[in-house]
């Protein structure tokens, strides 16, 4: 049994909107072990990014608020922590890399200074030492000519290089957990492959855990040990990677995998999930996927299924997997 790093239990994050309260994350639970990569996958609006921001306690209040649940980092409850203490955790123990590196970097400071700032904030190193450390981080994330690149402003770098700067910044204090929110979505395929390779290498090197958030199932298949599939604020399937991709159980996961172009017979009609993600302010009663599901029964419209276990590591929120029923 590996060591537990992060434990999320019944997390609930609610946003107050003009149309009423929206439960963006509605009672989700999963664990991250030390050195493990968890893939969190789902379409836009499913709550995957809100989950990441909740872990960092970066939900802006108002309009958002974490209204329930528990997040424990190494046994410490981080939701009830004073803000000052939480600030020490951010960047130091948990770091985050966002999708769009251009908007996450400050345009008026050089990339190197921004990485150095993160180091100074958390490690109290002097000017010379922190700069050397920043250059070393640049080298580690594969930025060529790190001393020269240190002096570059964000606009002087390409998208792939900027994402490397973000990763350098996130890893500069050797966090135990790196949250990567769509880290390769804005990048070209050839550069995406480079960043995936880099993240995998660094994870091994530092022995850190990785929470990888993306809508791209193939990126998840390449990187994750365990996969969590979200739909409309809830976890619909949770399984080790090899099980999820060889034997997907929830109709939504099955539908997503089947509808990916380029993997099955080209030119044929793609199997699709009809309709679209429900409006989070007007969720259907019963199962949230019921109006789009090919395998629904009357029960699905009335009662919401629990997260049933198929075996000790594979869970699916679908009445099909209710053992008492069959």
């Amino acid at each position, binding site marked *: 049994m590996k060591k537990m790093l992060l434990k999320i239990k019944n997390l609930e994050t609610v946003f107050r909107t003009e149309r009423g309260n929206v439960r963006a994350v509605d009672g989700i639970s999963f664990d991250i072990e030390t050195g493990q990569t968890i893939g969190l996958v789902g379409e836009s609006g499913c709550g995957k990014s809100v989950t990441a921001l909740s872990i960092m306690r970066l939900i802006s209040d108002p309009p958002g608020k974490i209204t329930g649940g528990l997040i424990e980092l190494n046994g410490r409850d981080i939701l009830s922590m004073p803000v000052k203490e939480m600030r020490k955790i951010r960047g130091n123990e948990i770091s985050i890399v966002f999708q769009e590196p251009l908007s996450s970097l400050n345009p008026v400071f050089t990339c190197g200074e921004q990485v150095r700032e993160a180091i100074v904030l958390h490690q109290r190193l002097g000017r010379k030492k922190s700069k050397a450390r920043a250059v070393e981080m640049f080298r580690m994330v594969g930025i060529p000519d790190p001393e020269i690149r240190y002096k570059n402003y964000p606009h002087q770098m390409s998208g792939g290089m900027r994402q490397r700067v973000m990763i350098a910044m996130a890893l500069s204090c050797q966090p135990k957990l790196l949250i990567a929110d769509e880290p390769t979505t804005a990048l070209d*395929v050839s550069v995406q492959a480079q960043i995936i390779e880099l993240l995998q290498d660094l994870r091994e090197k530092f022995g850190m855990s990785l929470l990888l958030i993306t809508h791209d199932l193939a990126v998840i*298949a390449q990187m994750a040990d365990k996969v969590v599939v979200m739909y409309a604020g809830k976890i619909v399937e949770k399984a080790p990677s090899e099980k999820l991709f060889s034997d997907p159980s929830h109709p939504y996961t099955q539908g*997503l995998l089947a509808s990916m172009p*380029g993997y099955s017979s*080209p030119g044929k009609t793609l*199997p*699709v999930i009809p309709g679209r993600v429900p409006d989070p302010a007007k969720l259907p009663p019963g199962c949230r996927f019921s109006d789009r599901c090919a395998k629904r029964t009357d029960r699905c419209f009335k009662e919401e299924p629990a997260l049933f276990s198929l075996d000790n590591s594979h869970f699916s929120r679908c009445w099909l997997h209710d053992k008492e029923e069959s």
Partner: protein
Amino acid sequence: MTILRAEGIKKYFTSSGSGFFSRSSSPVKAVDGVDISIEEGESLGLVGESGCGKSTLARVLMRLIEPTAGKIFLGGIDFLALKGKELRKTRRRIQMVFQDPYSSLNPRMTIGNTIAEGIKIHKIVERRKVRTRVHSLLDKVGLPPAAESRYPHEFSGGQRQRVGIARALAVEPDIIIADEPVAALDLSVQAQIINLIRDLKEDMGLTYLFVAHDLGVIKHVSDNVAVMYLGKIVELSSRDSLFSNPLHPYTRGLLASIPKLEFKGEKLKAAIRGEVPSPINLPEGCSFYPRCPEAMKECRLKPPPFVTTPEGRSVRCWLYS
């Protein structure tokens, strides 16, 4: 019958030399000598990474921007020689579907008027039949007739893309250029739009130029595929042979970079090192040479010609010359 033929298309962008910040610089060669030809009923996929010039090429073919050099023939008509009334009349033959379904629809126009506008301008049907025509187009793209009186903001991204397709179809074009039509959509919606595009092609015998960066999408919708790199087509071949046996090292690298959907047995290794160089200072010889794993001496010296192999495939690489 050849619907669209383009020869030697070049589009260079130069910075004007008068402003305070400007300095005389070499032009950006966004498109640098492209020949393509699309047959009736064919779907040609144009794939490449950002900055390779694929969208610029699409816009040049639409004559939304004027090329620096080259010729475009639309079913035998010299498209670039047309002016005024003749040009407006001929524009009907080539229509575009844009990437962003949010900015490509007029927010102050109802869906019905958006679709009807082209029908009226080009007098596709008599005035009193316009509405029926709009309804049948909405039906073709899977929207209810009631959609005609609604505004774009009332629709989701996928539905707006359906409207964009209906608008393109409205004037009965010979060819549709689709520039990243599904890139902004969620996976489940993306599959719906890909199916719609494919069904329309089958039902109506449509001809497409399909521009995308996603190789999976390209593989699904194209009969033939052109791979573009830094303004040039580096490989052109039928879909099946391109995906089963890519010839150009760039195509091979791109295909190897796609994450596999099967559970990882081995780690994904980046197949292409480095990034696309700036199109301002292109390398002397082959433009892919600095990143190419198989670069040879001649690659650095001379740009390779676009050759046709005995199997009838075209590739721009010294390995095959």
